[in-house]
């Protein structure tokens, strides 16, 4: 009889999930990476959705077409793996019956879940940097954060012009993000009148960059570009490049990660580094969000988090505009129709028609900052048109 109970235990799991559907509850999925190296980003995204939900719940719920909805965030982990993401997406879509998913962190996971989400009309908001995530035949996918493709050119133009950089060296992880960014950056430097002279690709978990940096520095580059690397890796590259006596410009034209880089490399090594920043602490709402994040979770804020807070809020507004939470086609159309949205980071608009064939890429203001004493100090303000 015992054997039956084992089998039962092994299979009963399935019967437990789901749960009673409370009245007027709006479920949102957060399909993000919560274990493994992508967890910093995943937590930032999940918490953004949670805080956005908290905001509307505090006021008695989200008012859509006269009905109040309490928002519930269901968070599942994908461990940054495509297979795990597919299972979690299946569970969210078919079991939890969510119509909206904040996620995924990675490029591979979003490409893997799109067949499910697009077919079932589930709106996703992904961080994945791959250009393939946004295409005309994937109308339900949105990306609320700018990628290298959006921010690289104006920043690189500015750096090349003001810092007199001619040749640049860069290390990229050998993964989908690294390869995409390497291509974008090479084009951007070319356009700005400089060259990405030395590039190296390395296995993602590599920690010793001294041999690669030795080679890059030996080629006499003026600057080292960090874009495309995870915060930890970028920190290690900075530290080891400075250890090797590299005195040129170090810059990162995409991906908010300054705090982590400083943590790893230390203040001395990062002094004078130029970084991309989406975050101006001078903007009151942005500062307030960071303070709230730190107070709530007792951890430094991940740089991508504010985008997903704004993204979730825009999603809520789209539901209200459309007057429905069920008809995602109407919500999608309403979301596309939002313009000049007053987000915590500034004014947001949809863009990307030219680049992706669909305007599902959020365009927001960004900055070039110089790291001084471990802190960002904004030196130029940018839009996709240029920096000054």
């Amino acid at each position: 009889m015992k054997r039956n109970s084992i089998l039962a235990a092994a299979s009963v799991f399935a019967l437990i999930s789901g749960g009673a559907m409370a009245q007027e509850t709006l479920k949102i999925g957060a399909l993000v990476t919560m274990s493994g190296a992508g967890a910093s980003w995943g937590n930032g995204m999940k918490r953004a959705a949670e805080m956005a939900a908290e905001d509307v719940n505090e006021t008695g719920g989200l008012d859509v077409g006269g009905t109040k909805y309490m928002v519930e965030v269901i968070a599942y982990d994908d461990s940054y793996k495509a297979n795990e993401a597919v299972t979690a997406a299946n569970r969210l879509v078919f079991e939890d019956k969510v119509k909206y998913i904040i996620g995924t962190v990675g490029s591979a996971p979003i490409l893997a879940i799109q067949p499910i989400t697009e077919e079932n009309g589930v709106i996703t908001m992904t961080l994945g940097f791959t250009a393939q995530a946004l295409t005309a035949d994937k109308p339900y996918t949105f990306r609320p954060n700018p990628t290298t493709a959006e921010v690289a050119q104006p920043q690189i133009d500015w750096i090349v012009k003001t810092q007199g950089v001619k040749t640049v060296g860069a290390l990229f992880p050998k993964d989908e993000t690294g390869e995409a960014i390497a291509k974008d950056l090479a084009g951007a430097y070319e356009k700005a009148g400089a060259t990405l002279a030395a590039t190296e690709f390395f296995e993602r978990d590599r920690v010793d960059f001294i041999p690669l940096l030795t080679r890059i520095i030996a080629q006499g580059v003026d600057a080292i570009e960090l874009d495309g690397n995870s915060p930890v890796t970028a920190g290690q590259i900075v530290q080891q490049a400075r250890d090797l006596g590299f005195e040129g410009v170090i810059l990162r034209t995409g991906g908010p990660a300054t705090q982590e880089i400083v943590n790893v490399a230390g203040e001395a090594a990062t002094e004078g580094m130029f970084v991309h920043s989406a975050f101006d602490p001078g903007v009151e709402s942005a500062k307030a969000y960071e303070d709230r994040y730190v107070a709530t979770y007792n951890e430094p804020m991940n740089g991508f988090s504010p985008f997903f807070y704004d993204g979730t809020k825009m999603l809520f507004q789209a539901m209200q505009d459309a007057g429905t939470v069920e008809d995602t086609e109407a919500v999608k159309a309403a979301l596309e129709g939002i313009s000049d949205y007053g987000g915590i980071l500034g004014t947001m608009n949809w863009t990307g028609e030219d680049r992706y064939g669909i305007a599902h890429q959020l365009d927001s203001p960004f900055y070039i900052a110089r790291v001084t004493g471990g802190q960002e100090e904004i030196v130029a303000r940018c839009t996709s048109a240029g920096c000054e």
Partner: protein
Amino acid sequence: MSMSATSSAPAFQPMTVVWIAGIVLAALIPWFTGSVFHFHIAIMVCISAMATGGLAVIAWVGQLSLAHAAFAGIGAYTSVLLVTRLDVPVLLGLPAGALVAGAVAFIIGAPLLRLRGVYFVLITFALNELFRLIMLDIPEFSGGSSGIAGIPKISLFGVTLSNYQSVYPFALFCLALVMGLLVLIRRGQLGRRFAAVEENLALAESSGIPTAKTQTIAFTIGSAIAGFSGAFLAHYVGFISPETFGFQLSVSYVIMLVTGGRLALWGPLVGALFLTPLPEFLRGAVEYQHVIYGVVLIAVLRFLPRGLAGLPRQLSRKGGRG
């Protein structure tokens, strides 16, 4: 590792019947609940069980392969490339994946299998890494680190299995084929040779069993099954990349095999059935899930050396004594 009682099958016929009944019942769960998600989980169980079944065949000659994910990857890439580049029907792509994975295993098997125990584990570990690194380096075939997305779904004679309810019967059918193959091997002369090699290589050699050939056969069959499961996975999930078939996947097959029962016929099935759904309990807090995996693994090794599949016998024996 000893398998003294395993070949005395007739004595435990009632037990086998109960096992089969239990497994059939478990297989029917998605139809009872009607949940699409349960169909998905059930399909994943089938795929994992097939792969783990392949690993079991290799374990039957006393070897533990940590390159199993790589062979699943070979099968997956073979089928996907055939289907997308040469317009081969998926139904032919799946066995082609098995064939190529098996062929690779056959070619490299002979030198590899001279190593035993931890040395074999180590070289297969290195092979799995090498596979991943090489695939990353040939993006024109593998899609590089971006992988291949939008892989065609499984279709049978022109009918595409577009939803989970229609994939599941086919997955069950494939699993039944694999398990049938396992039963045939186990009950046949080959199975007795495997067992002899597993138990005592030197003794088997001296009693006239061609041990090298026997091990190569097991490695080839097991890896071919892995290739088949990998191809199935690719067409089901619709996305593969070299990272899909990394060390972690190999480890998870090992964990399923050990948890189910390394040498038991039904071990792979029980292991997959138990461990594939387990993460769903903790989908929101996966760090705890991994800790639990670790504890389960060590506890099973310690207290259930025959795995979950051996639990009933272990219990009945204790009961008998008490």
